[in-house]
């Protein structure tokens, strides 16, 4: 293996890349556009019905009235949570966006407020920061509370709201979305890059020409993977910078994130090789790539959390490699839950090894 040859091919690939408006668009501008558009859309409101468990620690007539008021709001489906339930765990188990806890003394405080306008009590809103619905639920609860406060005291904040993130830090939708966007963009880049090399290059005679030249398959594959890694990191950096500058994200760069990005490049390059092996026409292979990557994009929790999908689709997501890429990147870059990040990283590596090895084994340079 000669590093010089790998470098020669790498440089040629980069030249071709920056001269191609199409690939520049798909690998850089398109994901950035999506972040801007989706970020803007999901900072607004959805109109679906949200399940809201309420744990009533007060169990007074005041708390019952409050719960009734919330039940009358069409957006909510209220569940009563027993006093012994761990609220955070419940939200996670049931994949819910949030839950409300009415503290003990809720009714007493309201009763006192008729005499003393300065007393106050806070309900606690536990929520999953990765869920785009959480902020919607919270804003509805807040407006109900405001109405209560006006009725009770003419405007004093007697009932307030405390946010209790199930992860412990304040995250919003864009924090969820950006890592998914990275996973998705890298998947597309690698699948289509790989398909191009295995269909277009075959049709154009480039693979036949290479066969007759002093370059080994290993050198060629390494050169191409080096280029894929380059593209992956360029896209990641561009997307992350937009996330930070436009949406004020806090992003942690660490080894797990880098390993996931590298493994991701091998994983989807391997998948592209497998597609290119079975679908020989370039256009059809591109369509096959789309048929695999688009559903994967929607089902693997790229644009919206899995919990918004029906249960059977949620379990289906668990067999999709992109799901683990997305989850791994989220936990490594944003939530800083390194146990989860590590777990997802290992799964991504296993997928990568399997897909890449199968891809390389299936890809033939020789003609029949």
């Amino acid at each position, binding site marked *: 293996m000669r590093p010089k*040859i790998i470098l020669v091919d790498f440089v040629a690939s980069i030249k071709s890349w920056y*001269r191609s408006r199409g690939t520049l668009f798909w690998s850089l501008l398109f994901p950035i556009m999506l972040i801007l558009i989706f970020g803007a859309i999901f900072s607004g409101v959805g109109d679906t019905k949200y399940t809201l468990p309420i744990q009533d620690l007060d169990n007074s007539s005041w708390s019952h009235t409050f719960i009734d008021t919330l039940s009358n709001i069409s957006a909510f489906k209220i569940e009563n949570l027993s006093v012994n339930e761990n609220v955070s765990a419940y939200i996670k188990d049931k994949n819910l966006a949030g839950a409300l806890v009415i503290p003990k003394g809720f009714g007493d405080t309201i009763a006192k407020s008729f005499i003393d306008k300065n007393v106050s009590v806070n309900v606690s809103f536990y929520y999953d920061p990765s869920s785009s619905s959480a902020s919607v639920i919270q804003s509805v609860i807040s407006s109900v509370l405001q109405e209560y406060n006006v009725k009770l005291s003419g405007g004093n904040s007697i009932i307030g709201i405390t946010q209790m993130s199930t992860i412990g830090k304040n995250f919003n939708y864009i924090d969820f979305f950006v890592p998914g966007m990275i996973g998705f963009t890298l998947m597309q880049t690698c699948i289509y890059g790989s398909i191009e090399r295995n269909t277009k290059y075959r049709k154009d005679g480039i693979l036949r020409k290479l*066969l007759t030249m002093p370059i080994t398959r290993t050198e060629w594959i390494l050169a191409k993977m080096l280029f894929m890694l380059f593209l992956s990191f360029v896209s990641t950096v561009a997307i992350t910078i937009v996330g930070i500058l436009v949406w004020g994200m806090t992003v942690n760069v660490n080894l797990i994130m880098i390993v996931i990005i590298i493994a991701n490049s091998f994983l989807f390059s391997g998948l592209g090789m497998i597609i290119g092996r079975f679908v020989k026409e370039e256009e059809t292979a591109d369509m096959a790539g789309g048929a695999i990557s688009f559903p994967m994009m929607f089902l693997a929790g790229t644009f919206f959390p899995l919990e918004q999908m029906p249960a059977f689709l949620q379990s289906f997501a668990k067999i999709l490699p992109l799901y683990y890429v997305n989850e791994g990147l989220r936990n490594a870059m944003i939530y800083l839950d390194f146990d989860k990040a590590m777990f997802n990283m290992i799964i991504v590596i296993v997928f990568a090894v399997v897909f890449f090895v199968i891809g390389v084994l299936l890809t033939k340079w*020789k*003609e029949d």
Partner: protein
Amino acid sequence: MIKKTVRCPSCDNVLTFFGEPGQVIKVTCPKCSAEGKITFEKTYTPENTAIQVSDLRKVYGDLVAVDDISFSVKKGEVFAFLGPNGAGKTTTVEIIESIRTPTAGTVKIFDRDISTSFNEVKERIGILPQEFHSFERLTVRETLDYFSKFYKKRADIDEIIKTMDLTSHKDMLYKTLSGGLKQRVGVAMALVNDPEIIFLDEPTTGLDPKARREVWEVVAGLRNKGKTVFLTTHYMEEAEYLADHIAIIHKGKIIAEGSLDELVNKYGQGSILHIKNCSTKDALGMIRERGFDAHTEGNGDIAVKIDYKERVLEVLSILRHDCIEYDSIDIRRSNLEEVFLSLTGSKLGEEGGEA
């Protein structure tokens, strides 16, 4: 030194001559003074042979694409592999280039069996695959530079650009080039390692006549530089214009092989002299009397078969001596088209199909 025994076409006298391989000598029959030409066939030795193909066979399911063919390509010659589409040309050349694996048979390049030693040969050959398209977004210069970097031995890229007449296009992106220019770049790419053998698989298919001729000039230039060129084509004209040696492949078999002269003399009608609008009665009889194979053609023309060029003068002297009256004469040599027709019973069309 080779010994060759021939029979005089005029008087059937048996004659023996000696010569070197490839040599052509003029001879005169001592008995009847008829003049003629003797060619001593080239013999193939490992030293002068570039490619040797023996009993090559390639089978796809029920289809025999290449049917036990054997041939040799001499160093320094332009070897044309001529045949219609689907005859097995590309399959054969791609087996020689080690892109496909044969079902049976051996291929030797520079006396090395490519099934085991192709890597040793790679540095010494250059290839233009069929319907080749290079990387779209590299310039001509970058493309040649890219491909040259893989080789130990490198030709001067600027020199190649100059000889291929690509100087004014060297900074253009490959995808913006015309079909003819792309093919020229393709040939140039096959030269970046200064190879000894250049394989050109249908280099002019799909080009307009002008672009085709430009590629021909390039190939002729390669021969002048002493390169061995293996050319596949379905254009008769291309083989006639370029090739030193032609192998005609049809349905997976080589049906004829030799120089253009050899093929035309063996399978064509040779040269025909037409006497236009001959008004002298019995002119045909007078010509036949002198031992010529002649016949009339409907419109008063007489066609005389010419075995070798010296006999043209004999016909002319008959015309003059016997005061035969005519309008004009012309001589037409039969071409590969006739050779192909007489061998296969069909014509080879412009698109490479048989008709």
